[in-house]
């Protein structure tokens, strides 16, 4: 502003800041980025496309299996990602081993694609403990239930990596509903100010439980939020796994090389109810779901890859068989999980048990003894 405004009366203008850059350059594309079904698909590495295909097929099978377990009461709850497999798979596959993934409660699939054992990923849903896998083994943070609260964690982890000289990137997932929480904005702002190597992926599945996007935000696109923090926004077709993978990979590598954070919005749709115990007939028209089924991320990919000559019937069968094996293994091992030990309740509250916790532990132990004796006398 110092020099740009013509002052007719000769007064001095304020030293506000240098003429500002064009914020429009940070706005996302007007229409979601797509690869499948466009000419760009021909340039994609075939091996990558095959990997993504196997992943989404297995992902779909996983969603069906986990939903079945929940309906049978063998999981306390399961929030499915049916219809969102492209986002889940692409998120996991865009990362290198040194990177971190920060999932929400819905993103067990992304964790599994990254290498987490599905039985361990489902521990929280099973209800034997709050969390099942070693976060450091595959660099996957615990599934976050309080919405958007994991986003500042991702920023801090990425920041620490920078301070330690590591080239780690953190990819944090959040839903459309989660973008309404203050934590989302605070985290994006911290990432931008600190130039932390973080990528935020908003899976806009158009619902937060029953609340549709229009009641969540009046923005023309959620990715439009990026410009307000001085970072680039990207908009991508969330049912096009290749497009999501490409956008995320670009953002991750940009972050890795000091380019700072990116906010990506993937436009997708939650095909299943919020969880197995949700009744979505109360808030949406089944015909809307049907329309989206036509854009099913698995089908879209299958058709495109067939068209490109990358997939044939035997590939498709092979993927399906392997997915079935995966589900059968999950089912079997899930059934044989040991019951949790009540003593665990006291072991990890603090590094060292307080005297008070030891007293309470003794009480529970005594109760268990008494119960065991009672049982053995029957």
């Amino acid at each position, binding site marked *: 502003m110092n020099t740009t405004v013509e002052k007719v009366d000769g007064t001095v203008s304020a030293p506000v800041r240098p003429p500002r850059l064009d914020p429009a350059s940070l706005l996302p594309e007007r229409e979601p980025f797509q690869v499948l079904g466009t000419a760009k698909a021909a340039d994609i590495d075939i091996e990558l496309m095959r990997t993504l295909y196997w992943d989404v097929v297995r992902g779909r099978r996983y969603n069906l299996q986990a939903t079945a377990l929940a309906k049978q009461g063998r999981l*306390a709850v399961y929030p499915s990602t049916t219809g969102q497999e492209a986002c889940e798979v692409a998120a996991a596959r865009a990362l290198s081993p040194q990177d971190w993934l920060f999932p929400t409660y819905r993103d067990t699939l992304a964790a599994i694609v990254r290498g987490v054992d599905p039985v361990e990923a489902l521990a929280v849903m099973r209800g034997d403990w*709050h969390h099942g896998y070693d976060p450091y083994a595959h660099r996957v943070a615990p599934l976050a*239930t309080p*919405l958007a609260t994991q986003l500042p964690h991702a920023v801090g982890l990425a920041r620490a990596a920078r301070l330690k000289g590591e080239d780690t990137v953190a990819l944090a997932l959040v839903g459309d509903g989660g973008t*309404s929480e203050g934590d989302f904005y605070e985290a994006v702002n911290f990432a931008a100010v600190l130039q932390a190597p973080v990528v935020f992926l908003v899976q806009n599945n158009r619902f937060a439980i029953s*609340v549709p996007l229009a*009641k969540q935000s009046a923005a023309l696109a959620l990715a439009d939020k990026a410009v307000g923090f001085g970072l680039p926004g990207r908009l991508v077709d969330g049912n096009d796994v290749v497009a999501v993978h490409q956008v995320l990979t670009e953002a991750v590598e940009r972050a890795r090389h000091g380019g700072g954070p990116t906010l990506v919005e993937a436009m997708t749709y939650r095909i299943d109810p919020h969880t197995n115990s949700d009744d979505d007939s109360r808030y949406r028209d089944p015909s809307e779901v049907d329309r989206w089924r036509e854009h099913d991320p698995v089908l879209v990919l299958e058709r495109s890859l067939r068209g490109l000559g990358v997939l044939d019937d035997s590939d498709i069968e092979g993927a399906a068989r392997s997915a079935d094996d995966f589900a059968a293994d999950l089912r079997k091992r899930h059934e044989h999980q040991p019951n949790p030990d009540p003593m665990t*309740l006291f072991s990890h509250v603090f590094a060292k048990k307080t005297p008070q916790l030891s007293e309470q532990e003794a009480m*529970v132990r005594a*109760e268990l003894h008494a119960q065991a004796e009672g049982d053995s006398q029957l």
Partner: protein
Amino acid sequence: MAQVLNAALRDALQEDPSVHIMGEDVGALGGVFRITDGLAAEFGSDRCADTPLAEAAILGTAVGMAMNGLRPVVEMQFDSFAYPAFEQLVSHVARMRNRTKGRIQLPITIRIPYGGGIGAVEHHSDSSEAYYMHTPGLHVVCPATHADAYGLLRASISSNDPVIFLEPKRLYWSKAQWSPESIPEVDPIGTAAVRRHGTSATLITYGPSLPVCMEAAAEAIKEGWQLEVLDLRSLVPFDDETVSAAVRRTGRAVVVHESAGFAGPGAEIAARITERCFHHLEAPILRVTGLDIPYPPPMLENHHLPSVDRILDAVARLQWEPGTSDGETC
């Protein structure tokens, strides 16, 4: 209890046009526990409004609505999802009347599905009443019966002060005889109720632990104890008179609640009874509470929650033989 709460909300909306319900999923869905079922359809989406997903703004917006003459009834989806609104609650809701010398009053009811015992995964079973009890300017109530679910909710909505209304989740599905006729005549905020008379000792409780205490009292008869059961209903204001009178009658008391014991509600209850009735006490007031651990996963929650056995154990430790001070740990 869910239908009773629903009826109370419906009647409040009906009778007072300034009542406005707001929260996550309270509209078409009727709330994840269906407490607002049908209300948006009946009263329109302005009177029963889905909000964006941000608890601080839900409560903060309710503050502004109350400043402008409305009577917001806010639903927080679960106990621990009220924490984002903690600053609004403590720094504004609880103090606005006081800081403005009564010029601004905030008749806001904050409904919180509360407590555990329903097999929910982490972050869905907290008991947060101690935080609210310790915050001057808030009323804190918790129904355990259907009549109180109705009466306390109507009284909360009518109150010109902010009220934390804790709805015991595991009583949502309790089915008991109830009709609006059984509404208590008196304003139930600030009054405790004796749910069972007894002479041996007093169980003091509220909300989700009341049924457990009633069961314990029934069991205790086998041991020869006639237990009095006191339902506090209102944690703030606290009904010192009724509580002290009960404990004076029996000389022995056990406080029972789900939330963690350390610095929990039972501490205040035990301390204030002891201050007031010291020479009537035959034994220290004992507490049966949740453990001092983060709320456990579903498969272990039974070890955390007060049980009939733990209550009876505590009653047994109330030094029934004269001169049994050996049980003390100091």
